[in-house]
């Protein structure tokens, strides 16, 4: 009463003057986003099982995909996945319904595009996915294929080499059968690599990278070993 409220108001503004400003200078400073923030909708190609639940859940027909069924295959093969983001209302229904967590919201909110066509996000089938199935046929354990960059492929290669070394150590007959012919040669080679660490890693590396080259090198190793043994035998004899 009689100016008490006025003084209170002055006190509040005075207090605020020396408080920390809440402004976030956006292009330089990024705002803090909660984990559940719904930014751009994104898609993880490797996980999708092409069940189509997302397209059914979407109220605005934002999502669509193409599949192909190969002859004899049980499952449909996903060819491409399209998110037409201009109609998306970020309702989260597709993300909730997806059984494999393929769809998710990123924290990217800078969705401006220069052309109308660029709004559509189209994911094409990455070639690594097809490679994966081939690798599976040649039963290489520990192989994971994802859309990746150089560092990841390198890490994967090293992993594969390690796996190959293990296989060569455990079961040389079966593993080496792919690079040399004849039981005698296999026996020679396995004895060789069992004693020589360098040769083991060389063969393993080549078997992962280039099967043909591995074959040549392995045969060269074998023939050289044979000659050496003959020499030794000649000297003894």
């Amino acid at each position, binding site marked *: 009463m009689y100016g008490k409220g006025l003084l209170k*108001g*002055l006190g509040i*503004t*005075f207090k*605020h003057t*020396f408080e920390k*400003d*809440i402004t976030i200078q956006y292009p330089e400073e990024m705002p803090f986003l909660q984990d559940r923030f719904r930014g751009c909708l994104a898609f993880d190609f490797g996980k999708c099982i092409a069940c189509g639940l997302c397209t059914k859940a979407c109220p605005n027909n934002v999502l669509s995909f193409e599949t192909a069924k190969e002859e004899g295959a049980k499952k449909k093969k996903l060819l491409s996945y399209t998110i037409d983001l201009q109609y998306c209302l970020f309702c989260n229904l597709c993300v909730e319904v997806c059984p494999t967590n393929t769809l998710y919201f990123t924290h990217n909110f800078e969705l401006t595009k220069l052309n109308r066509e660029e709004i559509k996000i189209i994911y094409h089938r990455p070639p690594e996915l097809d490679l994966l199935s081939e690798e599976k046929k040649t039963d290489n354990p520990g192989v994971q294929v994802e859309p990746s960059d150089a560092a990841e492929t390198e890490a994967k290669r090293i992993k594969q080499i390690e796996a190959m070394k293990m296989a060569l150590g455990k079961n040389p007959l079966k593993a080496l059968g792919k690079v040399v012919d004849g039981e005698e040669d296999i026996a020679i080679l396995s004895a060789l690599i069992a004693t020589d660490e360098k040769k083991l890693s060389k063969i393993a590396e080549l078997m992962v990278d280039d099967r043909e080259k591995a074959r040549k090198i392995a045969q060269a190793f074998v023939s050289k070993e044979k000659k050496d043994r003959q020499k030794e035998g000649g000297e003894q004899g």
Partner: protein
Amino acid sequence: MENWFLNIAHWLTSWLVSLGLAPVWADLILLVVQWTIIVGIITLNVLILIWLERKVAGFMQERLGPNRLGPFGIFQTIADTLKLLTKEDIIPSQTDRLIFKVAPMFFIIVAVMLYAVLPMGQDMAVVNLNVGLFYFISVGSLSTICILMAGWGSNNKWSLLGAMRSVAQMISYEIPLAFSLLGVVMITGSLNLSDIVQAQHNIWFILLQPVAFVTFFIAATAELNRGPFDMPEAEQELTAGAYTEYTGMRWALFFLAEYTNLVAVSALASTLFLGGWQGPFLPSWLWIILKTYLIMLVFMWLKWTFPRIRMDHLMSLSWKVLIPISLVNIVLTGAGIELFRWMGW
């Protein structure tokens, strides 16, 4: 440091006399130089003030204020001024052209005229007028006429409404403004601003006349058309009041004049109530600048705290509250003076 400006003035006059000019002409030239400097200082000051006001408003609302151009955004107002200077000068077809053109010029002239009597430091008033305070109040109320000219000349309903509000407000608040200053005048026994400053050698009048200071401050806010009493402009109701039809530099002149008035009234308040240029250690002209800025900061603080009040509330505040209070203050001051005289102080 104390006598820098006085020495420059003495040196200039003696140099002009030594050139063979009559002392009258030398004084006249000195006066022209003084005015040019005052106008220059005012313009620079307004650039700083607008930046300061935006910064203060920002901080009060927990924003940053202008911060892009130069360190802390101090060049923002300069850029704005350049923009205003280069804008097209639009005069609407239905206006009264002469009045429309002349109004902003008169406004700025009236605003600058206020500085003639303000003591900017010891012996540093441009004109040491005997009726300085009376001059200040009478010239200060002339600015109403300029706003009315702008509102009438624009031939626009918003402008006219704003101008009429401004006139009503000015007339109502002129009375408590003058009455609140009467207490100071009664104690001093002089209308000369330099004398009033001298009289505060022992004690500032804000301590002797606190009620007068508060009424003066409220009335001055209304006189300056500043928030929370910015009814004449009231953007939300009248677009920009009397300034609606103005563009570019003509509008900028109004803006400049408003801030010039703000500085003048703040300087007057510090002269009358805060001891003027008196203060320890620092030179007198620096003291008055510091005190003026302090008062202006309080004006800004009020503007960015309170919401605009309604027109009828504005009127009733003046006629029903401020005028009675200031009248009672005059009576009590007179009684107090008589009491002290009777007690033989």
